[in-house]
C-alpha cells in the first residue's frame, strides 16, 4: 500500500468500506422544497414575460444618432476663441506634461502679443480619454467632443495634427467640460474658502 492514489496496482489489495476512495459527489444534502422551486420557476418566467412587452433599448447606431450625455468624453479637438476667432491654444504645453500616456506633443511659437502652438500633435490611438488635458488647459483650447466616430482602416489617420484637431472641433458638438469650468468645480466652495480666510488671522501664518 505504498501509493494510495493507485489502488488498481496489482499488489494493492483494496479493502471494501471506509478505506476506499471517497465518492465523487454525494447527492446534494440541501433539501429544496418543491413549493420554493415552483415559486422560483414562475418568477423567472414572469420576468422574461414582462420583458417581452417592453420597448427594446437598441439604438440603430449608424442610422440613428445616439443621445450623448452632457459630459461625454469623446474625440479630442482644438477650438477657436469665440469672440476673436483666433486659435485658443497658447502652446503652454501643460497638456503635454499632464498626459499620462504622453500622446500629446506641443511646440510653442512665441510672438509679441501672445503665444501660439507652432505644432500640436495628438496620437489618438494611444489616448486613454482621461480628460486631464482638458482639465489643465488655461484657455479652454483643448476640449472633448460628443462623438465616438473613431473607426478607421488606417492607424496613421489617428495621429492628429493641429489642423485635424481644429477640423474636428468644427465638425462635432462640444462636450460640456472645459478647463475653467472643471477647475471652478474642483476647488472648495467659495463660501467655505472665504470662511477659511476669516478664521485665520493674518499674523498666525508664520
Amino acid at each position, binding site marked *: 500500500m505504498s501509493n494510495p492514489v493507485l489502488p488498481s496496482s496489482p499488489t494493492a489489495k483494496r479493502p471494501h468500506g471506509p478505506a476506499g476512495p471517497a465518492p465523487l459527489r454525494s447527492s446534494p444534502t440541501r433539501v429544496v422544497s418543491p413549493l420554493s422551486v415552483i415559486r422560483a420557476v414562475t418568477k423567472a418566467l414572469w420576468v422574461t414575460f414582462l420583458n417581452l412587452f417592453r420597448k427594446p*433599448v437598441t439604438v440603430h447606431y449608424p442610422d440613428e444618432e445616439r443621445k450623448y450625455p452632457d459630459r461625454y468624453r469623446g474625440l479630442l479637438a482644438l477650438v477657436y476663441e469665440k469672440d476673436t476667432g483666433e486659435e485658443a491654444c497658447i502652446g503652454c504645453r501643460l497638456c503635454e506634461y499632464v498626459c499620462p500616456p504622453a500622446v500629446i506633443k506641443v511646440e510653442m511659437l512665441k510672438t509679441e502679443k501672445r503665444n501660439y502652438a507652432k505644432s500640436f500633435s495628438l496620437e489618438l490611438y494611444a489616448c486613454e480619454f482621461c480628460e486631464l488635458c482638458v482639465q489643465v488647459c488655461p484657455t479652454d483650447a483643448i476640449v472633448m467632443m460628443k462623438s465616438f466616430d473613431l473607426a478607421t482602416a488606417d492607424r496613421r489617420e489617428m495621429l492628429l495634427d493641429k489642423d485635424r484637431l481644429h477640423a474636428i472641433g468644427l465638425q462635432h458638438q462640444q462636450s460640456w467640460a472645459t478647463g475653467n469650468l472643471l477647475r471652478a468645480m474642483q476647488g472648495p466652495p467659495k463660501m467655505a474658502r472665504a470662511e477659511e480666510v476669516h478664521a485665520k488671522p493674518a499674523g498666525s501664518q508664520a
Partner: protein
Amino acid sequence: MPAWLSPLVAPFIVLNVVIGLVTYVTLLERKFAARMQSRIGPYRVGPHGLLQPIADALKLMMKEDIVPRTADRRVYNLAPIVFLVPCMLIFATIPFAPGLGVADLNIGILFFLAVSSMEIVGLFMAGWGSNNKYALLSAMRAVNQIISYDLPFIFAALVPVLLAGSLKLSEIAAAQQGLWFIFYPVIGQLAFIAFVVSTLAAENRVPFDILEAESELVAGFRVEYSGMKFALIQLGEYAHVIGSSFLGAVLFLGAWAGPGPEWLGPLWMLLKAMFLFLLITWVRWSFVRIRVDQILTLSWKVLLPFTLLLLVSTAFVVVWRAGV
C-alpha cells in the same frame, strides 16, 4: 406520373416545407429571444431582418469544410447525416390536417418516439468521430441525459394515447375535437407540464443543455464541425424541436381544431406548434443551466415516478369513465 414516383411526392413536399420552416424558425427564435432581452434581434438583412436566415445559409455554404487531422474521418463525415435523418423522419407520421400527412401509421406515436430518440446515434458518432475531448464529453452527457429523459417523455406522451384510445396520431387528434387534452381536468395539465419538461430535456435545450454548455464544453459535440456539416446538425436540432412541438400540438392542443372553415386546419396546427416552440424558447431564456446530477435527479427521482403514476391514474380514470 409513373407509379413509383407518386409515393415520393408527399415526402418531398413535406421535407422541403420542413427545411424552409426550420430556416425561418431560427429567425423567429432569435427575434423572440431578442425581445426577451430588450433587444430587437436581426434587423439589417432585408426588412426587419427577414432575409437573415437565407444570408446565414449562404454563409454556411461558402464556409470551408474542415476535417480535423486526427478525426475518424468516416464516422465524422457520416455523423451529420445520421443525425439529420431521424430528425426529419419524425415528421412522417404527423398529420397536419385530416388526411394531410406523409404516412398515418397505426402506431404513429410509437414510430415518432422510437425514431426521435435515434438521433442520439448520430450525436454520439459526431462526438466520438471528432476525436476532441469536449465533443466526447458532450456526447457522453447527451447519451446519459437522453436515455434518462426518454422514459418520462414516452410516459407523458402516452397519457393522451390512453385518453384517446389509439396510437394513431390522426385518431388522437380527432378525439380532441370536443375537448383538447390540455383542458382535461388535472391529468391533462400535469401531463402537458411533464411533456414540456421532458421535451426540453430530450432536445437538450436550456436549462438541460449540459451537452453544449458553452462555459464548459465550448459548443459540445459539434465543436469540430464547420460549414455545411455544421448547418446539417443545426438543421437537425431545430427540426427535432419543431417536430416535438408538432407532436405536442397533436397530443395536447387539439391539432387542427380551431374556429373557422376546415381548410384553416393546417394553419391552426402550425400556430399551435409555433406556440409550443415559443414556450420552449421562453423557458430557454428564463433559466440557468442546472447541474448534471440535478438533471439526473429530476429525471429519475421526480419525473419518472410522477409520469408513471400519472399514466396509471389516467388508466384508472379511463376505465372508470368507460364503466360509467
